[in-house]
């Protein structure tokens, strides 16, 4: 077990008229090497939750454990935690500031007090991990890059810290379909090939259904649904009530069922839907 949240609650501005309880009694385990996605409407508590995962916020009540050690009452462990768990905020390209790409990516490792040589190695490695050619982009201004490239530079800045867990808040928001596909494929590769533990926050049901291993659905600061994508998308009625959408192909299966066809519900991709329909139509003819 990498990280546990135990009965976490979080209240913004307690004791004032603006008091809001953003998280209510959340218990969540994050396992080494898993790919977890968090979905939920705007205001459901997703951002508050992920800031607890790297100690940016501390719970009002409840406990946070890293490798079995409680961290939320221990300053030293908390500092160590922030170094081991990388958080990529929404629109991270807005946080680029250095005059060239290499300096921007090096900012985190430099704060770890690493040698120049080690920093240079890490910068190149991180740039390659996000699919950029270090010798091409190293000396360029980050602001001369496209939006998708800038976002990957920001991601490289997190990866250069060599975190055990990387949390990404809507990493594909605002990118065109190709840019989106590229960044999500990069994240898949980090998880698959480099055994990185990934937590992804997304509004796109399509993306989480086909990529994550486990989903949690937040609503009003509570975990309403949890399980594999197949488990979670069984509950079409609950998702609808929470203002979330089914992936298009899952919706297609649901409608075919309503029309009396026997089709499975754990269908998220066009390829899988094609197989099901070909079988269904073949079966009809015989």
């Amino acid at each position: 077990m990498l990280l546990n949240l135990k009965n976490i609650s979080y209240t913004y501005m307690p004791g004032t008229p603006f008091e809001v309880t953003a998280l209510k009694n959340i218990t969540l385990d994050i396992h080494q090497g898993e790919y977890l996605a968090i979905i939920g409407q705007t205001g459901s508590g997703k951002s508050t939750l992920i800031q607890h995962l790297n100690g940016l916020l501390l719970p009002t009540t409840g406990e946070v454990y890293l490798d079995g050690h409680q961290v939320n009452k221990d300053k030293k462990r908390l500092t160590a935690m922030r170094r081991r768990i990388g958080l990529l905020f929404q629109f991270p390209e807005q946080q680029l500031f250095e005059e060239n790409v290499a300096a921007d990516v090096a900012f985190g490792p430099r704060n770890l007090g690493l040698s120049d040589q080690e920093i240079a190695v890490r910068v190149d490695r991180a740039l390659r991990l996000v699919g950029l050619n270090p010798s091409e982009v190293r000396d360029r201004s980050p602001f001369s890059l496209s939006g998708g490239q800038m976002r990957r530079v920001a991601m490289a800045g997190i990866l250069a810290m060599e975190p055990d867990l990387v949390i990404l808040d809507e990493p594909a928001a605002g990118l065109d379909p190709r840019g989106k596909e590229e960044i999500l494929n990069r994240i898949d590769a980090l998880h698959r090939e480099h055994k990185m533990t990934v937590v992804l926050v997304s509004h796109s049901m399509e993306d989480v259904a086909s990529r994550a291993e486990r989903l949690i659905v937040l609503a009003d600061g509570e975990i309403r649904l949890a399980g594999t994508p197949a488990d979670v998308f069984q509950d079409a009625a609950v998702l609808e009530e929470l203002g979330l959408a089914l992936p298009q192909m899952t919706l297609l299966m649901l409608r075919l069922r309503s029309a009396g066809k026997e089709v499975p519900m754990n269908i998220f991709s066009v390829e899988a839907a094609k197989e099901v329909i070909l079988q269904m139509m073949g079966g009809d003819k015989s």
Partner: protein
Amino acid sequence: MAIISATGLGYQYEGYGEVWALKDINLSINEGEFVAVLGPNGSGKSTLAKQINALLTPTEGEMLLDGLSTADPLNHWRIRQRAGMVFQNPDNQIVATTVEEDVAFGPENLGFPAAEIRKRVDGALSLVGMSAYKLHASHLLSGGQKQRVAIAGVIAMRPLCLVLDEPTALLDPRGRREVMEIISRLNRMEAITVIHITHFMEEALAASRVLVLDQGRIVLDGNPRQVFQQHCELRALGLDVPAVAELVLELRAAGQDLPPDVMTVDELVAKLCS
């Protein structure tokens, strides 16, 4: 009658050398059309949107809005009253602390009497379904509600044309649905011309016409069913087709007898179960 008319329009940003952000744009959009604009990042979508209401003016060629040339600064005031813009990030568009004050910002600046402002604000909020929230604090609304308020602020100016630059990109599924319903309704019931820039192919299906931009040029122009049958061209540009259209293409390739212009879940279910 054409409300938006571009002839040989080209645009270069200062300091970007010889790169044309827009080039050879010839475009005529009639009153009451609902046009979706697609294209990869950097293809010129937002630049085109800003040409429509004279936030940018042509380097070459001409852009007319309701017959008014954007090249003449004396026309800008009238052009911006006729073409209202809504941007991607709702938080950047809120100017006042309550919903009704926010919507009143535009008409107040036009110098209308109080009674007229009241009428326009109430009318606009009712059109976007936000009347119940008029005294609410604007910053506490959901993303979809904020965008509806931003649209109401534009509607209160009584524009002929609404230009929306990725208004749903940052919204959750419910927020996206809310905004799309409002846009469709304004187009249908109020006959407002809509230019809707989006990366969501499913949203483009709601439009009556789809334009696809690439490297500053219009490369596809037609109704959604025509455009989304151009799978190869769209893929080459790094764009998608709606998931159902892609599935139909695959099923046809596997020998299923389906018409190529099936685009939505309901249409496909109807075909498969008939």
